[in-house]
């Protein structure tokens, strides 16, 4: 394959890749949990604190203006990243979880009533299960679940059967963190809209791998976390269609989200500030722009092509490990390789790989119902990012042979 960029120079952008773990050079394959951060993002965070730390939208002094402008530039950058129509459709949150909770607690509480139905899927992260369960419990709504096949793909026929005029909301994951499956979200959205339901996509995993266009998808809400796109932790965005966001009540009360406060009555600020109560995570919002710039300079299509190459290589290579079974063999997948090995507990695999300096994720990946669907308690998961290499995959294979030998 013709790699359109130089991996060794990309690796130099990520200082953490030089870490030595248990005496070995770090091999970081836990990118679906969080990606590492390039130097430009680290510099943006410290640059903010060193040069223009100030509270935003309030002061009229130089620093406050500079900080406010950087903050709002980030919003514009993320608007472009998602191809949202208006910048006020971009709400800063603390991450995917926060965004989903916001929608369930505001749109859900206001517009759903007893007997209404919410549809999620078997492969949801707990973040996209629990907020809806909480809402259903409170409002007397019913939660329905789209089943999947053994490859880890949604059963679209079953989805269609679940859709009725009682369906008011559909909230599904764009890309599964445990399986890597890319879901046919455009079709999901179209069919939901046909019965008048709104749709939220959990974009935590999709956003670093796939080209995003919320207008083309026509989703009503899209929630994502910057820490999975080479950006800072504890920071994310919720996209929502402007009309919907306007119709929703505020989520949290406090400073910034108000227009005028008296003890008798408060009027709320307009979008997006209505949903951004309190002093936000300014440094990380500012740095988010640099993460997105980094990704788009490399080119998302290039990143995806390279990651797919790594996935193909790894999928082929693990075949030589006897007793290994890949969990998640969807036709459309991102670079996530989840597997179990006969007779070996995933935690033992994780501990022994860690001793060799290889970081994989083991466990249920916050998708317990999905694990139950496969009759397992967890998997080992190697997930690849743009700075990973085939040589590292070779080390993983070698490491797995050692694990098998030691536990055999």
């Amino acid at each position, binding site marked *: 394959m013709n790699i359109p960029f130089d991996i060794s120079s990309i690796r130099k952008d990520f200082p953490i890749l030089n870490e030595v773990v*248990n005496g070995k050079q770090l091999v970081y394959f836990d990118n679906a949990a969080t990606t590492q951060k390039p130097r430009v993002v680290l510099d943006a965070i410290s640059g903010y604190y060193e040069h223009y730390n100030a509270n935003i939208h309030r002061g009229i002094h130089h620093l406050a203006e500079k900080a406010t402008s950087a903050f709002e530039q980030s919003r514009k950058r993320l608007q472009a990243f998602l191809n949202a129509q208006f910048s006020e459709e971009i709400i800063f949150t603390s991450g995917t979880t926060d965004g989903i909770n916001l929608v369930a607690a505001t749109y859900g509480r206001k517009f759903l009533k007893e007997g209404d139905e919410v549809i999620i899927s078997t492969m949801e992260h707990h973040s996209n299960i629990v907020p809806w369960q909480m809402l259903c419990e409170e409002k007397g709504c019913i939660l329905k679940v789209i089943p999947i096949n053994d490859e880890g793909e949604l059963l679209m026929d079953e989805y269609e059967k679940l859709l009725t005029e009682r369906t008011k909301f559909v909230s599904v994951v764009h890309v599964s963190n445990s399986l890597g499956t890319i879901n046919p979200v455009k079709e999901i959205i179209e069919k939901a809209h046909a019965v008048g339901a709104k749709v939220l996509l959990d974009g935590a995993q999709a956003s670093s791998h796939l080209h995003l266009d919320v207008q083309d998808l026509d989703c009503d809400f899209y929630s994502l976390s910057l820490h999975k796109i080479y950006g800072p932790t504890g920071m994310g965005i919720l996209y929502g269609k402007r009309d919907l966001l306007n119709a929703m009540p505020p989520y949290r009360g406090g400073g910034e989200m108000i227009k005028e406060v008296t003890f008798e009555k408060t009027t709320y600020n307009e979008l997006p500030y209505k949903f951004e109560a309190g002093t936000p995570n300014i440094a990380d919002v500012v740095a988010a722009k640099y993460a997105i710039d980094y990704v788009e300079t490399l080119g998302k299509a290039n990143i995806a092509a390279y990651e797919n190459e790594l996935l193909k290589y790894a999928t082929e290579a693990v075949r030589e490990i006897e007793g290994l079974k890949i969990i998640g063999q969807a036709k459309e997948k991102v670079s996530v390789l989840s597997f179990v090995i006969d007779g070996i*507990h*995933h*935690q*033992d695999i*994780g*501990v*022994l790989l860690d*001793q060799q300096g290889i970081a994989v994720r*083991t*466990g*249920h990946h916050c998708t317990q119902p999905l694990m139950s669907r496969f009759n397992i*308690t*967890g998997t080992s998961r190697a997930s690849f990012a743009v700075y990973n290499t085939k040589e590292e995959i070779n080390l993983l294979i070698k490491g797995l042979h*050692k694990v098998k030998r*030691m*536990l055999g």
Partner: protein
Amino acid sequence: MTINEIQDELISDFELFDDWESKYEYIIDLGKQFPPLEEQYKTEDNIIKGCQSRVWLNAYMDGDLLKFEADSDAIIVRGLVSMLVKVLSGHTPEEIANADLYFMERIGLHQHLAQTRSNGLAAMLKQMKAYGFAYQAKSVNAE
């Protein structure tokens, strides 16, 4: 042997190993040799909730001594569990409640105790001590 004598013995056992592989191979062996907990004790009550591996702990009094039996579905945790049982089982509740466990740190395995969310070990140790306190209180009340 006292709790500390057993700890010291384990520490010197581990001094024989100079690389991680032989150390972990030994722990895996301990895990394999550790007698499994009878199914009847693998109850919901006896389960220590860890995030990734399950650990069961059964406690009972044998005369004046508090004894433990345990199990885990992951082999390395099983080996570590066997060490905790070896050190703490068969002492008085008071000794167990007041024990200062330093062997994991000295052997260089303390990260397994620190990862409270990913295995049940730290929770198991806490539970063992809680049994110590509970039985200690019981025997005081009975007197």
